């Protein structure tokens, strides 16, 4: 049986841990709300761009932008892997990295080359340790995703796509479903899938300034960047939710542990008192 003092120290240390996890939980909860707002704020841009791009790709059917044309033979694959910068957020990063790794293994099995862009410290460290070919990276994004920080790393992949160094580009991130549920996904980014093309009843065309080609080039570049930004924003919302849940369960767990330890402590104390009493009684009887 452990002595009272030992148990008391242990209780104190668990209590301190609980204070920390509780604080982290509350910080994550407040950051989560902001991250969710930011995620939603990013949506109209993507929708608007999609609509304009739909009009354009329709009006401009003779010009095929490389982002829209799928290639017959896929030799090399690009992957943008979005993770968090910090840990202590449950299985968030492990899950997305495991999914990414599965895909990577598959691609390598098919003899395809791999270019990885790592967004987030955790993914960057992992990819590096795993020995993947990391062509660009962004770390230290902070709490607020900034498009400006992403542009460079993303451009490396987009240039590789345009030059034909990669034939398809995927993005892996954790999709935010709700506070309790986040889902790791790996989605195809390029060539752009889905129907960008709007309804074919449009009989009008835009006045272009300076010319149609450069406008659509700019537009599609921004569209792809908006998609990536959206993924990063979702990943951040997921990160904060996951952290909040993980820290909440850690706090609850600490509470349970403290309860159990208190029981042990009280038992030890009671045993000591009983022992002392019986010694006194025994001593008195001897006299």
């Amino acid at each position, binding site marked *: 049986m452990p002595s009272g003092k030992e148990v008391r120290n242990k209780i104190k240390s668990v209590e301190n841990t609980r204070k920390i996890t509780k604080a982290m939980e509350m910080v994550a909860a407040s950051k989560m709300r902001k991250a969710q707002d930011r995620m939603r704020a990013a949506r109209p841009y993507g929708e608007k761009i999609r609509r304009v791009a739909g009009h354009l790709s329709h009006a401009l059917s003779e010009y095929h932008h490389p982002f829209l044309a799928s290639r017959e033979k896929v030799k090399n694959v690009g992957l943008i892997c979005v993770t968090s910068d910090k840990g202590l957020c449950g299985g968030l990063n492990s899950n997305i*990295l495991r999914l990414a790794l599965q895909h990577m293994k598959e691609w390598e099995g098919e003899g395809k080359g791999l270019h990885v862009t790592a967004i987030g410290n955790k993914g960057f460290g992992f990819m590096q340790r795993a020995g993947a070919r990391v062509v660009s990276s962004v770390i230290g994004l902070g709490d607020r995703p900034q498009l400006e920080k992403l542009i*460079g790393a993303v451009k490396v992949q987009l240039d590789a796509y345009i030059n034909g160094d990669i034939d398809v580009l995927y993005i892996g991130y954790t999709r935010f479903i709700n506070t309790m549920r986040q889902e790791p996904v790996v989605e195809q980014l390029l060539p752009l899938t889905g129907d960008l093309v709007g309804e074919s009843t449009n009989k009008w065309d835009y006045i272009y*300034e300076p010319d149609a080609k450069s406008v659509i080039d700019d537009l599609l570049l*921004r569209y792809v960047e908006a998609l990536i930004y959206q993924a990063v924003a979702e990943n951040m919302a997921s990160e904060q939710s996951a952290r909040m849940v993980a820290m909440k369960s850690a706090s609850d767990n600490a509470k*349970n542990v403290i309860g159990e330890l208190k029981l042990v402590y009280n038992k030890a104390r009671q045993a000591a008192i009983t022992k002392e009493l019986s010694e006194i009684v025994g001593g008195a009887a001897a006299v």
Partner: protein
Amino acid sequence: MSLRVHVDVVSAEELIFSGETEFAVFPGEAGELGIYPRHSQLITRLKPGTVRLKVPGRDEFEMVYVSGGLLEVQPAMITVLADTAIRAADLDEAKAVEAKARAEEALKNRSAEINYAAAEAELAEAIAQIQAIKKLRNQH
């Protein structure tokens, strides 16, 4: 009542302005563009500058600064896809080069092959830890 046109100014990070206007001025790449409602369809690039919007019932213009972007005009609505950062081909290029250099720097002493076994083991360990904690907690 004068004619109105709906204007949305959005950037990748937020919705900056959304509402009805009577007249709007945009910093187009080829020069300032003053647009009244029922303008014909137009699409152009914007250069960094101020978007001025005449909101009904207010004397002064509503000002929004944009660091470039794209402008789409339709007879009944105008959309500004604003950039959040100052964009230029050479600036983007510099960022790309920087990002690349950073990655290369970090990869100087990497092994040639992806070590899937080690990577999987690392992840499996992390996931097993989380699951073990979950199980432990369920016992309580």
